[in-house]
């Protein structure tokens, strides 16, 4: 293992622990004072590594460090540079050898770890069903124990779904120091291997480029805000992988690419988390269904709206349910000057017209949208809200029907108003 430059691991750990004990606000204030007075916390410890380690402890630490780098706190330039460098290191941009992920920090820390067990007997908990809320509740209950945790996940169910697996991977990244997976059924054990789930969750590996393993699934892929280029390609790559192996025509490919790209884009723009998001996808050719899940452990939909600079937006987002409804409305965004508020609206409408399902879960609320059509008549889009226990972050899961159209032109047409100008074809 690579030692951080300028100091041994144990020294860095000790210094990190000293600041960490004070909590984010006081800890960063003390660090700023120490560094700003040109008195590094310890001559043997490399300040940027200490900053990097602190930034990975939680989003609260990263936020505090960012506040200090905004230039309004009269901080010395050298400190600002250090903080920027530290955040870059956290994002893994500059120092691949010294990258300190949250799980690695936990694994190295000397603090005692609790032990936990999660038994997954009902596969429906992992799917787009009502039981999904039970799974979130159980993860929440595990979070109430002392963290980090050494966790055994025992799959006694006979099959699994990508939605719950992506959620579990994100939870482990944030909360678990060590995870061991046990699958009682061979089919599930093979699935966990083939989808890279075991590599990511148990062996702490990172899969940045989606890979297809021949059984109609795309491996659990990590979307990091730092690795922009790789993540930019994720949506496109997932569709290409499926297109090469299942019957997917061009008319379906483009709306799928657009839907996945908008979901990945949301992670960058709204999650505000240093922890990675996870994407996983599975096609079922026999039933012509495609399942995709993307889960992050960021600030969540509600906080994103409550942090908006637009007072009217903040006022409307009074509850988590209202915030999620706003997120999928047309032309509503928490960043009114920067964004258009079209992305999730387009995804929702495509899903509804496709008679698929979209689940948005954030905080204590799950909102599910679907379109329904029977053989006699079209029954319009419907939605249902379900309470669940707190999830720090956001999950968006989609189910598309591959044998039904994805009417992109119709949905894009809904973005416009009839009186709007045609900018094309002017002489």
């Amino acid at each position, binding site marked *: 293992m690579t030692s951080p430059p300028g100091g041994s691991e144990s020294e860095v750990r000790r210094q990190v622990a000293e600041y960490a004990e004070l909590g984010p606000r006081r800890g960063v204030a003390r660090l700023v004072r120490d560094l700003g007075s040109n008195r590094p916390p310890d001559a043997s410890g490399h300040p940027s590594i200490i900053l990097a380690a602190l930034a990975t402890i939680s989003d609260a630490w990263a936020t505090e460090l960012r506040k200090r780098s905004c230039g309004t706190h009269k901080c010395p330039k050298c400190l600002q540079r250090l903080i920027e460098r530290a955040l870059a290191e956290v994002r893994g941009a500059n120092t691949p050898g010294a990258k300190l992920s949250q799980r690695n920090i936990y694994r190295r820390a000397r603090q005692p770890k609790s032990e936990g067990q999660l038994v997954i007997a009902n596969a429906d908990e992992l799917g787009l069903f009502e039981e999904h809320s039970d799974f979130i509740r159980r993860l929440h209950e595990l979070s109430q124990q002392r963290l980090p945790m050494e966790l055994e996940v025992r799959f006694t169910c006979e099959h699994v779904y990508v939605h719950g697996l992506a959620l579990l991977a994100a939870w482990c990244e944030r909360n678990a120091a060590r995870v061991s997976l046990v699958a009682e059924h061979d089919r599930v054990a093979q699935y966990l291997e083939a989808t890279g789930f075991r590599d990511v969750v148990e062996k702490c590996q990172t899969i940045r480029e989606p890979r297809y393993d021949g059984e109609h699934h795309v491996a659990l892929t990590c979307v990091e805000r730092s690795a*922009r*280029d790789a993540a*930019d390609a994720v*949506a*496109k790559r997932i569709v290409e992988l499926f297109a090469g192996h299942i019957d997917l025509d061009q008319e379906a*490919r*483009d709306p799928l*690419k*657009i839907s996945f*790209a*908008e979901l*990945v*884009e949301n992670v*960058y*723009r709204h999650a505000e988390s240093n922890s990675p998001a996870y994407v996983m996808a599975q096609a079922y050719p026999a039933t012509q269904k495609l399942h995709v899940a993307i889960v992050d452990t960021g600030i969540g939909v509600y906080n994103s709206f409550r942090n908006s600079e637009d007072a009217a937006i903040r006022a409307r987002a009074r509850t988590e349910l209202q915030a999620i409804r706003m997120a999928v409305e047309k*032309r509503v965004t928490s960043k009114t000057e920067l*964004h*258009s508020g*079209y*992305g999730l609206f*387009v995804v929702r409408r495509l899903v509804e017209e496709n008679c698929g399902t979209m689940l948005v879960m954030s905080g204590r609320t799950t909102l599910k949208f679907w379109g329904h059509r029977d053989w006699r008549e079209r029954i319009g889009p419907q939605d249902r809200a379900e309470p669940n226990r707190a999830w720090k972050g956001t999950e968006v899961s989609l189910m598309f029907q591959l044998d039904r159209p994805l009417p*992109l*032109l119709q949905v*894009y*047409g809904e*973005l*416009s*108003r009839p009186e*709007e*100008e*045609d*900018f*094309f*074809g*002017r002489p």
Partner: protein
Amino acid sequence: MPQVFRVAEREADLLTRGQGELVRAQLVELHETLAPGERLTIDFAGVSAMTPSFADECFGKLAERLGANVFRSSVRLVGADEVVRVLVNSVLARRLGAGRKEPA
């Protein structure tokens, strides 16, 4: 000689705001080289998939930066299929919509 920018020259799938920023920077650079009275033609032929995020980041923000009058008089949009045309019209209308300030 008219300046023509082919949007799909490098990439037919235009999906992310990151891509949108890059293309917008190229368009701004090209626009700055226009002689008085000259127009920049943006050709959408060959575009396969375009997300609302890309369209807004690239064309919406370009139009906002230039202002409605300059955009209308100096930029020409051609070659889009129906899906792209509807999307780009929508983001332009939003960014140049009523109540938006013209840049100083």
